[in-house]
């Protein structure tokens, strides 16, 4: 009888236990004795039976919810990436997707860097784990578990070998050095190739051709060494900027200073004086191309003396300077890629230095490559049939493009200083006017210097066709007042136009009318607390083209608007030249380790913790991102 009792008790205790407890136990452990300013290793162990699957943190698919691990604590200055074991890849017949998961006991790990001004004592770090588990037939709904680990800080200077987060800054997939290295190469090479076709680049091409054409006439000048020096000028400039940022931020731990260096790229692209100078320079170039001004630039570079030896020296120096000038003029188009590499450089560590140096070198070399080729064979271009007329026409066409580029540079200081001479509508009209002039020129309605223009009809027609294609969206935009934004354009056209013209002047006013807190984080936070809604942050920039695309095309969609209704919205500019902007730029860099816009975050106003954030420009999937933020907010606020 007693035996039965024992068996029954055991049986029921077991079933009861098995039915109620979630099949996973989370244990968190860490280094227990550390010093201020040192790294603490944290291990999050999820214990479960072999049959249970817990899903990958990083390889996210449509279907099961990914695991999330958030580490928090007042004593932490930086948090490293959470590292998970290589997930198992398996087809999920329910969702009809490949899912990524871990089976049975799983060990996640991360590192945090402690603040360096901590007095000795006992502290706590909290770890939130959010996960769902499934087996073949069942799933447990997602739960959040909170663990706390105790850390004892002993007195003493931080030990050197324990002051670097090895898991930090690996924001891309993959935990091993190889894949992040590959990523870097892909970014650098891809970015460089993209930069070849940027409009900032080709106004320089006729100058290169005529300069190297002149140089090649002189037999005493080694053509390949001139080309190499020219390439060195281009690549060297980028490498130099990378090095400069690395050294400036070497050992700097103040995030504000780091942000400043990382934003050098932004500064160059948006500095009023620099853009004014470039604008004037391009107008000058245009007039020169048109033959209205006749300055022998190449001659000036080669001038001083006609003596062969001197000449060669000047040619070498000239080609190097031309390379540097070329790199700087192209900067305003290449800044998205360069900026990304600069953020890595600004991390102030040896790895950061190495990575940015490598990235900038690859970028610079790849970027310089076609232009070096061009400089090697300028004469072959000149020897094309009917080269004289051909060159003349090409020069004038380039001249028009340079005029357009000048307009693009000039509206930057116009906005910056609030002059208001070049609002969006005027810029659009100017582009149209320039385009129409170009068409008129190609149709032989007028010419410069009365040159012979009665040939190459087919090429002219192609030119007219291309110009018309480019003008069409500009015209549509111009006739879509009051915002001068035509919303029916394909996205790439939109992106291109937004890169070329100033944002509508009423952007902020419209946003404020729609309930956005523009450049008012504190006000928005207070409001979000009052209303009990999550806070949506839109880190944006006046000069950020993709931000405009998101704001104009994605934000007004019905489903997005519905999500926005359940949030308090704040739009924070990071590139206005006021102190607030630098505060917000710093905030973005400190909290989210990024310096590129757009960047979107949904956060919980009660403790300003991140619910979800994005890597930036996500025209697709933005809806999902928002609903996920709302969902997490709702779940979190049920406790």
């Amino acid at each position, binding site marked *: *009888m007693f035996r*039965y*009792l024992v068996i*029954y*008790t055991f049986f*029921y205790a077991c079933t*009861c236990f098995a*039915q*109620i*407890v*979630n099949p996973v136990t989370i244990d968190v452990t860490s280094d227990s004795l550390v010093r201020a300013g040192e790294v603490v290793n944290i291990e999050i162990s999820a214990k479960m039976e072999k049959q249970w699957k817990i899903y990958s943190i990083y390889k996210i698919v449509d*279907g*099961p*919810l990914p695991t999330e691990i958030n580490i928090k604590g007042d004593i932490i200055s930086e948090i490293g990436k959470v590292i998970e074991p290589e997930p198992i890849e398996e087809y*999920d*017949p*329910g*969702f009809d997707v490949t*899912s990524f998961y871990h089976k049975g006991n799983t060990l996640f790990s991360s590192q945090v860097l402690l603040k360096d001004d901590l007095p000795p004592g006992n502290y706590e770090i909290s770890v939130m784990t959010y996960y*769902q588990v*499934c087996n*073949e*037939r*069942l*799933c*447990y*709904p*997602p*739960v*959040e*578990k909170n663990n706390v680990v105790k850390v004892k800080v002993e007195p003493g200077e931080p030990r050197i070998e324990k002051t670097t987060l090895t898991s930090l800054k690996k924001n891309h997939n993959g935990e091993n050095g190889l894949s992040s290295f590959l990523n870097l190469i892909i970014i650098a090479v891809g970015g460089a190739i993209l930069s070849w076709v940027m409009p900032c680049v080709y106004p320089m091409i006729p100058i290169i051709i005529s300069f190297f054409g002149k140089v090649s006439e002189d037999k005493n000048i080694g053509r390949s060494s001139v080309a190499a020096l020219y390439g060195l000028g281009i690549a060297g400039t980028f490498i130099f900027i990378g090095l400069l940022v690395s050294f400036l931020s070497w050992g700097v731990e103040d995030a504000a200073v780091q942000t400043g260096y990382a934003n050098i790229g932004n500064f160059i692209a948006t500095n009023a004086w620099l853009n004014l100078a470039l604008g004037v320079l391009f107008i000058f170039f245009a007039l020169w191309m048109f033959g209205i001004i006749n300055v022998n630039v190449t001659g000036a570079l080669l001038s001083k003396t006609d003596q062969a030896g001197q000449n060669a020296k000047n040619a070498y120096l000239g080609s190097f300077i031309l390379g540097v000038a070329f790199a700087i003029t192209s900067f305003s188009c290449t800044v998205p890629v360069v900026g990304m590499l600069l953020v890595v450089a600004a991390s102030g560590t040896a790895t950061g230095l190495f990575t940015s140096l490598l990235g900038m070198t690859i970028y610079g070399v790849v970027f310089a490559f076609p232009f070096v080729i061009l400089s090697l064979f300028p004469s072959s271009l000149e020897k094309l049939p009917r080269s004289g007329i051909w060159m003349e026409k090409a020069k004038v066409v380039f001249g028009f493009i340079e005029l357009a580029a000048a307009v693009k540079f000039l509206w930057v200081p116009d906005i910056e200083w609030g002059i208001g001479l070049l609002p969006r509508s005027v810029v659009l009209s100017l582009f149209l006017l320039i385009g129409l002039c170009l068409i008129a020129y190609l149709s032989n309605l007028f010419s410069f210097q009365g040159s012979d223009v009665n040939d190459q009809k087919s090429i002219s027609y192609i030119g007219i066709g291309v110009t018309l294609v480019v003008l069409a969206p500009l015209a549509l935009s111009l006739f879509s007042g009051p915002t001068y934004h035509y919303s029916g354009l394909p996205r790439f056209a939109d992106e291109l136009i937004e890169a070329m013209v100033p944002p509508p002047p009423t952007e902020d006013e419209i946003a404020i009318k729609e309930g956005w807190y523009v450049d008012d984080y504190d006000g928005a936070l207070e409001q979000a607390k009052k209303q009990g809604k999550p806070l949506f942050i839109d880190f944006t920039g006046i000069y950020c083209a993709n931000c405009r695309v998101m704001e104009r095309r994605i934000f007004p969609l019905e*489903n997005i608007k*519905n999500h926005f209704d359940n949030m308090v919205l704040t739009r924070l500019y990071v590139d206005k030249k006021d102190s607030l902007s630098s505060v917000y730029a710093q905030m973005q860099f400190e909290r989210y380790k990024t310096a590129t816009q757009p960047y979107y975050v949904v956060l919980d106003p009660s403790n300003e913790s991140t619910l979800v954030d994005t890597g930036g420009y996500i025209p697709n999937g933005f809806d999902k991102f928002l*609903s*996920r933020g*709302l*969902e997490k907010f709702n*779940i*979190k606020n*049920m*406790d």
Partner: protein
Amino acid sequence: MRCNNIFLIPLLFFYALSCGNSAETNQEKIRTAKKNSKPITVSSQKNSSKKNKASKKNQNSAFPKIKAPDFNLADLDGNILNFSAYEGQVVMLTFWGTWCGPCVKEIPDFIELYDKYNKEGLEIVGIAIQSGSPENIKLFSEHYKINYPILTDINGNESYKAFSDYGTISGVGMRAVPTTFLIDRDGYIVKTYRGARPGNVFLKDLKPYL
């Protein structure tokens, strides 16, 4: 054997109570509104004693009849419904989630069952747990071409509360999905399925009740 049964009753009672209690502590771990957790415990204890009575009453029958608990949930258009909306029909109440692969695997079979037997009085009701906004679930159900009604939270975590109530009262306990309850025309739970099943299993079981 009789001896065993005598032992069984107090043990069952004790077990039900202890489940209720540990359910409460577990409740706190799981994200459920604090204000909700207390009433659940109270009702679960009430329910367990009810269940005990029920099991006493039906000591001789193989399946003790348990009345399906009521619930208050919203459909995907925001209308608030309770169980009485389906009274008088044979109901398959299935708790599921949009994040749950095994649940999604069951959907085609449910669609087919609903197609064939809805006219004969079969109602299939999917209760979506922790699956986000109604719009989200709507998109999901359109994607999988779900033809039977889906219910979910009104504004808090009501679907989970309903799941909890059903789990506790039927004794399966628990929190894993899919869990499907077969309810007869008189509103009694006649069968419980924890985990995914093929459609023919459901069909075989529900046929006699139609």
